[in-house]
């Protein structure tokens, strides 16, 4: 005991030499007879990237970066032996992440309400019921600058104010947990990791707008989230945070769960309302907005999971505290689901205004492969791609919109040079075509037509006029669709054309896909110099497109070849070229 613990990890760009440094460190300890005094631990990830060798003394909260082999001696002699800090090597950066929504995720047992209470849970509710009139809550939220985290960024205080001011005896409060963007799972993380934080926000919202009934609209594809929300509701009823006269006040509020049956469009508020009412989940024209005429024609406010999880901390710490975080127009933090070709995929929560580069390289640990970053997709099927030139853009609602993407609910997919932008556009558009409810023509037919044009392009039948055609249909969809699904479905196409038109032209004019994704534009050939004439490709080709003999060599017949890529996979000598 009494050992100093030392964490080491090589985070250099040129290979991981942690083991060498570890051996050197141990040697130095031995030379100085300090083996007993320090415990050196190789770690798999130290949370710092591209900073060379990182040496961390957790008890002292001292972190050294860019430690050279020659510096190690000094580290051992000074810091290990004498406990002195070497200023020259110190790492001074503040942590990039800031956890408000995810404050308890991974900390508490989500199925135990007491653990949530121990983290000051339901204290905001108690405070509101004791000291706040609904107008005070709205005022606090206005100060905070919180905007809806579901995607559009509508000011939360205004939504609540409008619903609060509508006169009616019955109002409803809904939590939208119908998260459906491909690659996005922030809400699932919160509901599974800390359901009470959302529940508390929902109850406060109900009090503020004057609702007596609330609904959790959760997609059925999240069984664990549903289970944990159900448990949370039960515990909240047992404790009296729900039901009649909550915490001894005059306020009574009930919450029920409604499951979404797997339609993406039900994340749209009017479609969601229709779904709860038991009707087919299709949107209707707005206005009237739900704040005036919502569920069962009664005033209704709908907020996203992440928005609601922000409420309790804002009440407890004040709107001014919250608005001190973030940029001028986008306050607070945002949770992103960082996925794709990034080393550390997962949920990250960052203050607004952080750059995309910081998210991908400082938090995400950089790229998974040695292929360079090409673009980042944000906002799911309603968003767009942001090319690498704009990596230093601070992330907020306005900036992302200027770049032709949107904040969206928080999906962030990192793409490298292997990703074909036409293929990406096709994927997202295909998703929206599948999920279009079919009620309005621009979305139903426009989406289908755009998708067939994209299919044509990736199947080597594209014509240069197709680019204009895509833009024209996109405009019609944006202007004339009934809901956001149709209005934004063309965004991935438009933004990829905006930044990667060259790539589209390559597909259309040169019939080439530089990322080798579009199989109709690929040709497989045998590289004769490398071919060992083993015939493995011949045997494995399902359509007998490879012929030849051991003397002349083997050849792929492009007419018979179906571009399945089997030959490429099975060749042990890398003698099949894909171009």
């Amino acid at each position, binding site marked *: 005991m009494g050992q100093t*613990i030392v964490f080491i990890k090589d985070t250099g760009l040129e290979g991981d030499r942690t083991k060498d440094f570890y051996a050197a460190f141990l040697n130095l300890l031995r030379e100085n007879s300090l083996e007993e005094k320090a415990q050196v631990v190789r770690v798999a990830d130290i949370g710092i990237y591209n900073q060379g060798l990182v040496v961390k003394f957790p008890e002292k909260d001292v972190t050294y970066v860019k430690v050279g082999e020659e510096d190690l001696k000094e580290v051992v002699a000074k810091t290990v032996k004498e406990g002195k800090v070497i200023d020259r090597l110190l790492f001074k950066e503040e942590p990039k992440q800031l956890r408000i929504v995810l404050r308890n995720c991974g*900390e508490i047992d989500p199925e135990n309400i007491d653990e949530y*209470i121990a983290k000051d849970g339901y204290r905001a509710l108690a405070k509101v019921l004791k000291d706040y009139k609904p107008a005070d809550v709205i005022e606090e939220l206005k100060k905070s600058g919180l905007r809806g985290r579901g995607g559009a960024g509508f000011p939360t205080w205004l939504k609540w104010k409008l619903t609060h001011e509508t006169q009616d005896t019955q109002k409803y409060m809904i939590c939208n947990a119908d998260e459906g963007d491909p690659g996005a799972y922030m809400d699932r*993380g919160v509901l599974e990791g800390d359901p009470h934080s959302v529940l508390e926000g929902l109850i406060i919202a109900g009090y503020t707008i004057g609702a007596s009934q609330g609904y959790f609209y959760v997609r059925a594809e999240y069984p664990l989230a549903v289970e944990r929300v159900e448990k949370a509701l039960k515990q909240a009823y047992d404790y009296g945070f729900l039901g009649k006269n909550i915490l001894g006040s005059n306020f009574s509020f009930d919450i029920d769960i409604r499951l979404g049956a797997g339609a993406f469009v039900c994340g749209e508020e009017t479609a969601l309302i229709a779904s709860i009412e038991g009707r087919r989940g299709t949107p209707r024209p707005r206005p009237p907005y739900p704040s005036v005429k919502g569920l069962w024609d009664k005033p209704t406010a709908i907020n996203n999971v992440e928005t609601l999880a922000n409420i309790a901390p804002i009440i407890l710490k004040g709107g001014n505290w919250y608005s001190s975080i973030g940029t001028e127009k986008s306050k607070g933090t945002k949770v992103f689901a960082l996925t794709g070709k990034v080393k550390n995929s997962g949920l990250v929560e960052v203050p607004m205004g952080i750059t995309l580069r910081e998210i991908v390289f400082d938090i995400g640990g950089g790229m998974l492969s040695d292929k360079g970053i090409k673009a980042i997709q944000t906002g799911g099927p309603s968003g767009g791609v942001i090319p690498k030139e704009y990596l230093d853009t601070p992330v907020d609602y306005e900036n992302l919109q200027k770049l032709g993407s949107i904040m969206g609910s928080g999906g962030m997919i990192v793409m490298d040079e292997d990703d074909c932008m036409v293929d990406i556009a096709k994927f997202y558009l295909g998703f929206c075509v599948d999920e279009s409810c079919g009620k309005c023509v621009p979305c139903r037919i426009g989406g289908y037509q755009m998708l067939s044009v994209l299919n044509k392009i990736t199947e080597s039948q594209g014509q240069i006029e197709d680019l204009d055609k895509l833009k024209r249909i996109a405009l019609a969809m944006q202007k004339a669709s009934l809901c956001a699904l149709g209005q934004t479905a063309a965004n991935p196409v438009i933004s990829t054309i905006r930044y990667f038109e060259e790539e589209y032209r390559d597909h259309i004019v040169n019939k080439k896909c530089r990322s080798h994704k579009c199989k109709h534009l690929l040709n497989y050939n045998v590289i004769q110099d490398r071919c060992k004439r083993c015939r493995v490709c011949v045997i494995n080709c399902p359509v007998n497109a490879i012929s030849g003999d051991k003397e002349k060599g083997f050849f792929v017949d492009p007419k018979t070849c179906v571009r399945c890529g089997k030959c490429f996979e099975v060749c042990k000598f890398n003698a099949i070229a894909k171009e």
Partner: protein
Amino acid sequence: MAKIKPADLDRIKAAHQDDGKDWIKVGMSTCGIAAGADKVYEAFVEEIKKRNLDIQIKKCGCQGMCYSEPSVEVRVKGMPDVIYGKVDKEGVMKILDKHVCGNALVKDAIYELRTKR
């Protein structure tokens, strides 16, 4: 359970304050379970019982490090809090043998260092 009053919040909070005991926390959200967190949890429960160790085993949600699931946070007195990633049955044994019983952290398995509390 009787309906609680605002004052009860303090009582519950006080009852759940850190009592200085050692614990192991397994991330049990969809991402963790998909990677095998439930088996890791069971393995811990079984081994702790078998060895009669005085350490609590708890569940929690996703810490956000989905790339290194299943993840396990360990608090042992006198040692820094760390999160082990990509834990499997073998990892469970190592964590118990070394970290919990041997006061030595497991090499090449730590994915996050919690700040000392």
